[in-house]
Structure formats: C-alpha cells, structure tokens
C-alpha cells in the first residue's frame, strides 16, 4: 500500500476528508459569526444553539411532517433565520448602545435556555437522521473510499460560502452591508434603513448556522449539545481568521479543519488542542487575526 511519511495514503486521505468536513462546518459557522460581528458588533454566542436548531428543525420536519432532507435544507434555515430576526428585534436591538459584553452575555444566556429546552424535550442521547437516498453510498477513488454525502457536505458548504462572499462583495445589498459595517451613522444619514439592515443581517447569519445544522444532521447525530461542542472551536477559528473578516472566516474554517485532520494522523493526541495552540500563536504574532484589519 502507498504511504506518505510512513502513514498509509488511505488513512491520510480519510483524515483529510474528515478534516475538510469539519472545516466545512467551521467555515459556515464562522462566516455567520463574522458577518454578524462585523455589522452588529455582537459576539453571537447563540450561534451553536442556532446550528443545533437547524438540525432539530430538519429532524422534526421529517418525523412530524414527513418533509424530507431537500426541502428541509431550505425550510430549516429560513425558520432558524426567522427566529433570529425575532431575537434581534425583541432583545439584541436594545443592546447596541452598550458594551460588546452585554451582547455576548445575552446570546450566551439565550443559548443555554434553548439548549436546555431541547434537552428537556428530546433528551441528550441524540437522534438519528438518515442520509437522503440520493446521497447514500459512495465512490471508490484510487486512493480512498468517498462517501457521497461527505463529498456533498464539502461541496454544498463551499458553494454557500462562495455565494455569501459574492453577495457581500459584489451586490448592492452587500455594499450597504460593508458600508454600514464601517460607518453605520453615515449610511443611515444617506437614507438607508440601517436598523432593518441589522435585523436582516442577523437573520441571515443565523440562517447560515441553521443550514450548517441541516448539513450536519445526517453525519453527526442530532443532539441538543452538538452546538455547544462545536461553537468553542468555531470561536477559536474566528479569532484566528480575524474578527469580522468574511474571507478570513471561510479560509481559516476550511484550513483549520484540514490541519486538525492532519494532526489526527501524525499526532492524534494533539488533535483536540491544535486549533487552540494555533490561536494562541496567532494572537501572539498577529493579534487582529490572520485576515483581520487593525483599526
């Protein structure tokens, strides 16, 4: 069997794929966090809970309403996004004049409440969600076996990240968002409804988390704690990429997923901590993050 640095190629590519899949979730989640932080200056600690809600909404759609994976991929993010719109209007909008810390505390509290509600109702053991028939099975590649669904996760999240990036960088609405991120008062003085822009942006960022949740449902089990587990790593990813940087969130998300996968092959003991070690190093050398702009 072919090897690289004494590691079987099959194991290496297997871990690389796993890393890419984790990276896909990191990228979508940190992208949503970056968009929200950039415009709203809110560190959205509820992001993990909203990701979990996406997975649960997909599960409920299937089990209570018989709505399958493909419609859920659209319905669940819209539903989770709307819950975000409500949260922003009712609670978060009251905090814009206060310190960042209040937004963090509020969203952290919301996350605990939401996770608690789901744990009470569904238990903590996790619920199964089947891979849709169209994406089951896999392909035997020369160097590895590629499960179709895992390939789909990587492709779908890349596409969503790219579409989001294009929407922000190339459209009129994106120009409003970029301008309001820099100077909301002036954009408002031009006649743009900035409060509405904030609401929509929060809803969109949260919908991205919901989308990631649906993508995750068939590969990870649908579990009230799934968001709490991943969100800590995602925050480290955001810090490494640079708070508020869109491209930074995408690139570091995928990149760190792959790094984590590689570490699993060469030094498995370090795989759980490698991202935090990188975070510490980046903070020492470049406190604003790899792609962050220092003010």
């Amino acid at each position, binding site marked *: 069997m072919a090897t690289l640095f004494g590691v079987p190629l099959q194991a290496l590519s297997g871990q690389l794929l796993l890393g890419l899949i984790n990276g896909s979730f990191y990228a979508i989640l940190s992208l949503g966090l970056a968009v929200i932080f950039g415009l709203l200056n809110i560190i959205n600690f509820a992001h993990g809970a909203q990701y979990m809600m996406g997975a649960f909404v997909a599960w409920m759609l299937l089990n209570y309403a018989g709505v399958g994976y493909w419609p859920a991929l659209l319905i669940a993010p819209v539903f989770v996004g709307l819950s975000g719109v409500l949260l922003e209007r009712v609670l978060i909008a009251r905090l814009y004049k206060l310190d960042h810390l209040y937004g963090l505390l509020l969203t952290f509290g919301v996350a605990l409440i939401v996770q608690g509600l789901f744990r009470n109702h569904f238990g903590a053991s996790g619920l199964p969600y089947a891979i849709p028939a169209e994406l089951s099975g896999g392909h035997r590649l020369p160097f590895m076996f590629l499960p179709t669904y895992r390939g789909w996760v990587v492709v779908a999240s890349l596409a969503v990240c790219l579409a989001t990036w294009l929407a922000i960088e190339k459209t009129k609405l994106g*120009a409003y968002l970029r*301008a309001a991120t*820099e100077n909301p008062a002036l954009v408002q*003085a*031009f006649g*743009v409804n900035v409060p509405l822009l904030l609401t929509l942006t929060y809803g969109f960022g949260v919908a991205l988390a919901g989308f990631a949740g649906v993508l995750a449902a068939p590969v990870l089990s649908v579990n009230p704690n799934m968001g709490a587990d991943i969100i800590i790593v995602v925050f480290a990813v955001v810090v490494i990429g640079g708070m508020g940087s869109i491209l930074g969130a995408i690139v570091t998300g995928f990149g760190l997923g792959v790094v984590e996968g590689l570490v699993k092959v060469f030094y498995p003991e370090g795989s759980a901590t490698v991202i935090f070690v990188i975070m510490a190093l980046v903070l020492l050398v470049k406190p604003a993050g790899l792609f962050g702009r220092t003010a």
Partner: protein
Amino acid sequence: MPEALLAERPVPASAAPLLSVDDLEGWYGESHVLHGVGFDVKPGEVVTLLGRNGAGKTTTLRAIIGILGRRRGSVTVKGVEAIAMPSRLIARLGVGYVPEERGIFASLTVAENLTLPPQVKPGGLTLKQIYELFPNLEERAGSQGTKLSGGEQQMLAIGRILRTGAKLLLLDEPTEGLAPVIVEQIGRTLRMLKTEGFTILLVEQNFRFAQTVADRHVVIEQGRVIDTIPNADLDANLGKLKTYLGV
C-alpha cells in the same frame, strides 16, 4: 461641463425657507454644545456657517441631519418638522450630507461609493453627468475609495449626493486641507450647483473661499448665532469678521 447643467434657473427672492433652524440645542454626551442656534436658508441660496474651531458649526450640521446623539429645538425642511426624525427619514426629505471627514468607505470601490446613497427624490444627476463633472472619478471607478487623493475623495463625497436627487446639500468644510487648484474646482462646482437650483449650507473655516460661493454668512460662536452678514457686505465687515474668527 454639460450645457444643460449650466442653464440658469431663477430663485424667487421671497420664498419660504427650505431649511429653518430654530432654537436648536445639541449635546455630545454630557457636554452641551449648541445653545439655541437659529437661521433660515431659502431655496437656491448658498449660506455658510463661519466660526472658530469648536464654535459648533459641524455640530449644527450633524444636528440638522440627525446624527447628533441628543438635540432639541426645531429643524424644518420644506416646512416638515424633522427634530424627532431618525436621520434616514431626514435624508428622505431631500437632504444630502457630506461629512467633515468625507466618509469615503474603504471597503467599497469608487463606483460603489458613488452609487451607495439611495435616491431620495427624483431628478438627481445621472452617473454620466457626475463623471463629466469629475472626470477623475470615472478613471478610478474600480479603485478602492480611500486610495483616492484627498481632492478626489472630496469630489466623490460631493458627487455621490448629487445622484440622490437631494436639493438641499449640507457640506462640512469641503475645501479643508486641499490644494488651491482643487479648492478652485470645488468652488466652480458649488457655483454651478447654485445656478442649477441646489440649496447649499456650507461649513467653512476659510471665509475667502466662502466669499466666492455664498449669498450669506452666518457666524457661530460658542454654540450660538452671533451675526449674519450678506456676502455683498463682507468686505465692509471684514474687521468685525476677523475679530469673530480670530484671524
């Protein structure tokens, strides 16, 4: 400059004010900066706010457009009371604002900066007309907004509100820190806008420049209007004005 832009339009002499500021008070946090500012601007007029640094000129503009934290008194635009409105609705009354720091967005290209402010009234200049007015902007349309020179950024800041159809322009020191040749170009632009029927409220430090464009000068000191000088009488009042401005 396009011919159509230069067509003279008569300004009625005794028209109702387009902008009326009365007993305007304003605060930056805890500090009370404006203490009852009051003046009118008639349609088609160019009025400058003159005064020393820190007199409250910029704060007055910020209070009019509604981005000052706390304000009280009365600001009416075309007779509509705007003191309690959020700034986005004041803009929708047909007010265009150029802030002192120009407010060019670094994450937007020149073209994106130019087309960012939404149309608030019909009848704004077209992109083509703005590019004819400021050819530099067209050449650099794809550049990052803040990569422009100071003069070009000022042209961009003025150009982008001409597209919106706003007919009342609030300009905060458009000549600050610019080379004389650029100042001259901005002066020509303002005179052209006046003949086009725009109404302009201009904050200036440089009364020599103000003299070349304005109909009237409102002098502000310590957050109050202390004098109003018609442009025709400026030379006669030069001594007094220099005392006001401390020059």
